């Protein structure tokens, strides 16, 4: 009985909706986290080049996303 309940619960854990939702939520959280960290680095005088190197993206990519016009 307990085993059956456990199994049912574990099957529930495999519900793709929960997993997919977690991925979407994580992406959203990640976007905001990135913005916070980039802003903070800029405030501390980091160059776009230095920020891009830490993020593992190109300088152009980071500047296009966060740079001033």
């Amino acid at each position: 009985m307990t085993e059956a309940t456990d199994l049912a619960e574990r099957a529930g854990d495999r519900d793709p909706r929960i997993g997919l939702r977690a991925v979407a939520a994580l992406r959203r959280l990640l976007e905001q986290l990135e913005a916070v960290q980039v802003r903070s680095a800029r405030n501390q005088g980091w160059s776009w080049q230095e920020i891009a190197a830490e993020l593992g993206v190109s300088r152009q990519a980071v500047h296009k996303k966060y740079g001033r016009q």
Partner: protein
Amino acid sequence: MFERFTRSAEDVVKGALDHADRAGSRRVESAHLLRALLDGEGSRGAFVLVALGVPERRASLERALDLSRRRAGLSGADSRALAELGIDVEAVVSRVEDVHGEGALADRPRPRSLFGPRRPFGKEAKDVLTRSLRIVTARGERRIGDEHLLLALTTHPGAVAEALADHGVTHASVERILYGEGEDRGQAKAG
């Protein structure tokens, strides 16, 4: 689409722009549409909200929106899904806020030129507008009113619909006020 908006729906869109301006948000989000709807008076949308007892619980509803905004716009269901992965959203938010200040993970304006375009609608808010048009079309109505924007807000899964549902505003409850019996029973009768 906008040419089909009634005055009340126009007021919500304008009000949402003002709310986004005041909050310093980069885009107009569906939460701004909801805040503007809550400001409405004498419209069909306002009538629905009063009938569902929302004005008395407005502070609580706005707190729910504020909390979601602080959590990068995540809903309670989003936070629970992340908890399944062992990620405690509240812990992440409070650590980031400890270092970077309160509201650090809330949507912030992107540095822009003074003469840049007026802030655009976010993807979700745009989707709400599109859905309102679809609702009106499906019902064979012609004009989009603020009550249709409210209906559309309840159908878009996410933090806003969740906050609304927690305060008794669901697609079913709004339809019941607007159209009486509700779609399901109407169909059951017809069948």
